[in-house]
C-alpha cells in the first residue's frame, strides 16, 4: 500500500472540525455520557488496568491513522491482549449502544481507523503472537496485531512467505490488512489480502466470537469471511487469523528500465502483459516522482528519464530467464534508453528503494501533498496519464505519478503548499478530478487504500443507490445497531430497522426527526 508514516502521507495536519460523517446520526446514541460510563465500568472489569486508556493526553496519540488531516480524540482506548478481552469490550459497546472503531498499527490511508469522539478505539497492538507456522499446510495462524512483514520473516526459514506486501509492511498489521483488503506491489500476480486469508476468529458487533473459514478451503455456508475482508471494520473485528503462506520462488529477477515518456513506459507495460507474461510486479514512476526519489534516497535511477518501470519476474528459473529476455526486448522496442538488472537481494533492494520510498520522498519537493488511490483498466493508462497532465497544467497544481502499472492502480501525489492560501483546496479539487477520471474509465475510487472516511462521499459516483442499499443489507445483518465503525465506507447514515415482514416497533427517533433513513 502507500506511505509508511502517517505524517508523510497527508495533506498536512489540517486541524479543524471533524467532517460531518464522523459525528452525525449514529453518533448521537453514543454521545450519552451514562452509556460511556457503563462501558468504562464493564471494560475496567474485564481488562487489566494498563489496557484501558482514558487520560486525555494519551488518548490524543490515537487521534488519527495514516490519513492525519482527519483527527478525532476517542472517548476511550482499549488495548486487549486476547480475543476474550476484545469481545468483552465489544459486548459492552453493543450493550450500551456505544460505537467502536478497530485499529491495528494505524497506517491506513483513508481514515478507516479514525476514532469516534463518542466511542471506543479498540487497538490490537498487544495481540502480536504468531501462533503457528505450518509449511506442510501452507498456513500461518497469527494474531491481528502481528506485523505483516513478521509473518514473512517467521515463514522464510521454512521456504515460505506471506505474499500481500503493502509498502507499509514493516509496520502495518495483519488485522488492518484484513479490514482493508490490502494490496501491494506484487498483487498483480499473487492477489490481495482476500486471496490469502483462509480463516479468522471473528468478534461480531454484538461481541459474540465465531469462527469464519478455517485451515481448509471452501467452508460450507456463505463465505462470510469474504464479505468481512475489506469491510473496513464495519462488520466486526477479526482476531486470530489463518493466512496462506506462499512458497518462495526459485528465481527472482528485477529490472529497472528508463523511458523518455510515460507513454512509452505505458505501452511497454501493455506489451509485456499482451505477451502472456504475468510479472510479479510492474511499477511506474514519472519524472517528478523520480526527481523526489532521487533527492531522498539517491537510488540512481536513469538520469533524464521521463518514466521508469520496475519490473519483477519470479518463478521457476527457466521461465524467469525466458520471460526476462522477452521483457528486455519489449522494453527496447518501446525505446527504453537504460536498463539495470538486479539478480541478488542487495541489488533488488536498491531498485525497490526508490519506488518504496516514493511517497515519503515527495516531501523533499513539496511541503504538503495528497496521496490519491484510484484504478483504471490498464489499457486506459496512456490516455488517463495525459488527462492528469492536462489537469495539472490547467490548474497549476503539480502531480507526481507513482503506480502499480500492471493492474492500473494509480497513486498520483498531488503537491501543494498549505502556507499558500487556497492551495489545499486547489489540490483537493485536482485529487477529486482524478477520481472522476478513474470512474469515467470504468475503474474504481480505491484500489487498496480503502474508502474509510475519506472517500465515502465518492461511493455514489461509483455505485447506484440500489447497489449501496444492497451492501447495506450485509451491514444490517452483521450490525443492526450500527456500532461497528459507523460513518465509514457509506456516505449517508442509515438505520437498519427490523427485518421486513417482521414486527416493527416505534420508528427510531432519528427517522421520526427526518435525520436518517430507515432501511
Amino acid at each position: 500500500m502507500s506511505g509508511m508514516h502517517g505524517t508523510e502521507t497527508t495533506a498536512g495536519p489540517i486541524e479543524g472540525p471533524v467532517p460531518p460523517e464522523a459525528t452525525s446520526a449514529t453518533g448521537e446514541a453514543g454521545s450519552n455520557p451514562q452509556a460511556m460510563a457503563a462501558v468504562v465500568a464493564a471494560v475496567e472489569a474485564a481488562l487489566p488496568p494498563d489496557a484501558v486508556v482514558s487520560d486525555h493526553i494519551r488518548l490524543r496519540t490515537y487521534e488519527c491513522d495514516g490519513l492525519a488531516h482527519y483527527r478525532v480524540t476517542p472517548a476511550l482506548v482499549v488495548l486487549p491482549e486476547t480475543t476474550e478481552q476484545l469481545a468483552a469490550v465489544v459486548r459492552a459497546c453493543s450493550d450500551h449502544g456505544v460505537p467502536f472503531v478497530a485499529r491495528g498499527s494505524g497506517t491506513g490511508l483513508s481514515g478507516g481507523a479514525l476514532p469516534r469522539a463518542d466511542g471506543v478505539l479498540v487497538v490490537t497492538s498487544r495481540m502480536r503472537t504468531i501462533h503457528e507456522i505450518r509449511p506442510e499446510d501452507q498456513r500461518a495462524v497469527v494474531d491481528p496485531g502481528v506485523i505483516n512483514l513478521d509473518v514473512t520473516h517467521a515463514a522464510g526459514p521454512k521456504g515460505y512467505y506471506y505474499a500481500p506486501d503493502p509498502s507499509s509492511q514493516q509496520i502495518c498489521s495483519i488485522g488492518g490488512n484484513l479490514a482493508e483488503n490490502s494490496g501491494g506491489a506484487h498483487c498483480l500476480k499473487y492477489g490481495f489480502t482476500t486471496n490469502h486469508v483462509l480463516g479468522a476468529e471473528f468478534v461480531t458487533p454484538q461481541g459474540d466470537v465465531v469462527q469464519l473459514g478455517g485451515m481448509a478451503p471452501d467452508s460450507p455456508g456463505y463465505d462470510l469471511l469474504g464479505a468481512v475482508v475489506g469491510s473496513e471494520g464495519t462488520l466486526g473485528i477479526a482476531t486470530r487469523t489463518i493466512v496462506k503462506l506462499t512458497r518462495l520462488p526459485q528465481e527472482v529477477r528485477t529490472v529497472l528500465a528508463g523511458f523518455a515518456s510515460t507513454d512509452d513506459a505505458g505501452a511497454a507495460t501493455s506489451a509485456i502483459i499482451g505477451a502472456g507474461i504475468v510479472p510479479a510486479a510492474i511499477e511506474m514512476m514519472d519524472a517528478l516522482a523520480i526527481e523526489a526519489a532521487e533527492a531522498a534516497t539517491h537510488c540512481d535511477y536513469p538520469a533524464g528519464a521521463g518514466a521508469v518501470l520496475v519490473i519483477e519476474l519470479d518463478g521457476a528459473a527457466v521461465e524467469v530467464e525466458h520471460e526476462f529476455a522477452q521483457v528486455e526486448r519489449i522494453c527496447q522496442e518501446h525505446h527504453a534508453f537504460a536498463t539495470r538488472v538486479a539478480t541478488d537481494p542487495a541489488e533488488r533492494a536498491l531498485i525497490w528503494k526508490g519506488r518504496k520510498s516514493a511517497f515519503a520522498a515527495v516531501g523533499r519537493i513539496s511541503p504538503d501533498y495528497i496521496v490519491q488511490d484510484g484504478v483504471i483498466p490498464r489499457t486506459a493508462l496512456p490516455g488517463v496519464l495525459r488527462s492528469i497532465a492536462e489537469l495539472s497544467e490547467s490548474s497549476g497544481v503539480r502531480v507526481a505519478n507513482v503506480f502499480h502499472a500492471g493492474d492500473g492502480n494509480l497513486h498520483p501525489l498531488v503537491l501543494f503548499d498549505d502556507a499558500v492560501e487556497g492551495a489545499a483546496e486547489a489540490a483537493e479539487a485536482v485529487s477529486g478530478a482524478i477520481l472522476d477520471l478513474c470512474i469515467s474509465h470504468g475503474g474504481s475510487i480505491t484500489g487498496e487504500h480503502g474508502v474509510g472516511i475519506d472517500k465515502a462521499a465518492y461511493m455514489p459516483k461509483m455505485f447506484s443507490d440500489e447497489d449501496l442499499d444492497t451492501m447495506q443489507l450485509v451491514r444490517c445483518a452483521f450490525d443492526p445497531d450500527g456500532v461497528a465503525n459507523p460513518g465509514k465506507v457509506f456516505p449517508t447514515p442509515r438505520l437498519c430497522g427490523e427485518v421486513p415482514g417482521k414486527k416493527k416497533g416505534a420508528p427510531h427517533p432519528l427517522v421520526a426527526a427526518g435525520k436518517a433513513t430507515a432501511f
Partner: protein
Amino acid sequence: MTTLDVDLAAARTALSAACGEVADAGPADAVDGVTPALVARPGSTPEVAEVLRAAAAHRLAVVPRGRGTKLTWGRPPERADLVVDLSRMDAVLDHAAGDLIVEAQAGTTLAEVQRTVAGAGQRLALDETVPGGSVGGTLATNASGPGRVAFGTARDLLIGVTVVRADGVVAKAGGRVVKNVAGYDLGKLVIGSFGTLAVVTEAVFRLHPLPAARSVVSAPFERPEEAQRLVQAVLQAQVVPSAVEVSWRPGGTGTVSVLLEGIEAGVEGRTATTRQLLGEASSAAAGLPEDWAALPWAGRPGRPTALKATFALSGLARVLETARAVAADTGLDLDLRGSAGAGVLHGALAADADPAAVARVVERLRAECTDVGGALVVLDAAPEVAAAVDTWGPVPALDLMRRVKERFDPERRLAPGRFVGGI
C-alpha cells in the same frame, strides 16, 4: 409443492407481462424432485428484475437455473413455484483482452466463455467440472477443479457481479478492474450460495494467459501415507504446479498427478524435476487427459452419492486412511478424486449403495475431515440416501448466515431449504 396462498393464474399473467417467455413447467423442470408450476426465461437483467418483482408480488418461491447441470446439488427446495431459467442470457458481453477481463451473462456456458477468450490466447482459470455448466451455476455451487492449486476458485477470479434480489432490485458490486476495494464484496457472498441470496445475472472475471505447453507427471501409490509424501514433495519443491491431483479407489492403486504449465523449455525442466520428486515409477505425458477435470461420479448410472471433502493439506493421509477403513467396513466402492494440493477431494458412491452404509461413510469421513480442519458435504444423493445423511454437516457461524439470508430474502422465497441449516 405449491403453497396455498399462491394464485397461479394471476401470477402467470404478471410474469407474462414481465417476460415474453413464460411456460408451464414439465417433469424435466423438477428441482431435485420438486416440480414447479412455471418456468420463466428472461433475456436480460431488467427482465429478470421484472420477473422477480412479479414473483415477489405473488409470493412465488423461485429457483434460479443456469443450464440445470447441478440442480440436484444441495438439499431439495422446500417449495418451488417458479424456475427462473437463465439459458437465454448466454452472451459474452465483453472480452477486453488487453485488460485480461471478460464479462458474461449468467446463462453463458463456461465452455463458450473459454472459446471466446481463447482467441486472444487467454483463459478463465475455472475448470469445467460438470460438462455444459453455466457461469451462474458455477458461481452458485462454487464448483472447482484441478486448476485451483495455481489459480484459486471463483472467489479469486470474480471481480464484478450483477445480481437481482428477491424483491427485484438490481445491484452491482465490484467492477471491471482487478484491483478494487470500494464497498462490500457481494460477489463473495453469492459464490456458493446455491441461489438463496439473489439471482446472479452477469459476472466479470479476470483472465490468465493460456500456457504454451502442458505436461502431466503421474505416479502410482498404494498407501495413504505414500500419497501424502508424494503430494508434499511436490508442494514443498519449487516446480510451481498448476494442479496436484490424487485419485484413488481405496484398496487399489492410486495416482498422484501433477500438472505443469508454461513455456516449452520451462515445462520440460520442471517435468524432469517433478519426475525425480515422484520417483522411478512416475511417467509424464504432454497435454491433458480427456477426463482431467471430471468429477468421480461423472458417467455413473443412476444418481450416485457425491461427496466433497476438505482438509488441511497435511491431513491428506488421515482422510485417505479413514476412507480406506470405512470403505472396507461397509463394503462400499468409494471413488476419490480431487485437488489434494489444495485440500479438496471429491468422492463417489454407487447409486444403489445401501443408504445406512453411505451414512456411515459420511459420518466417519466427516469426523476425520473436521478433525483436520475441514468439512464434508454431501453434494448430491438419491432421496433415500439424502434422507439418511446430514447433507451439509455442522456449520459454524450459522446464526450470522441466517441473519444475512433474512436481510436479502426475508420471505424465504429464493431456493428455500437448499442451503445450510435449512436456509
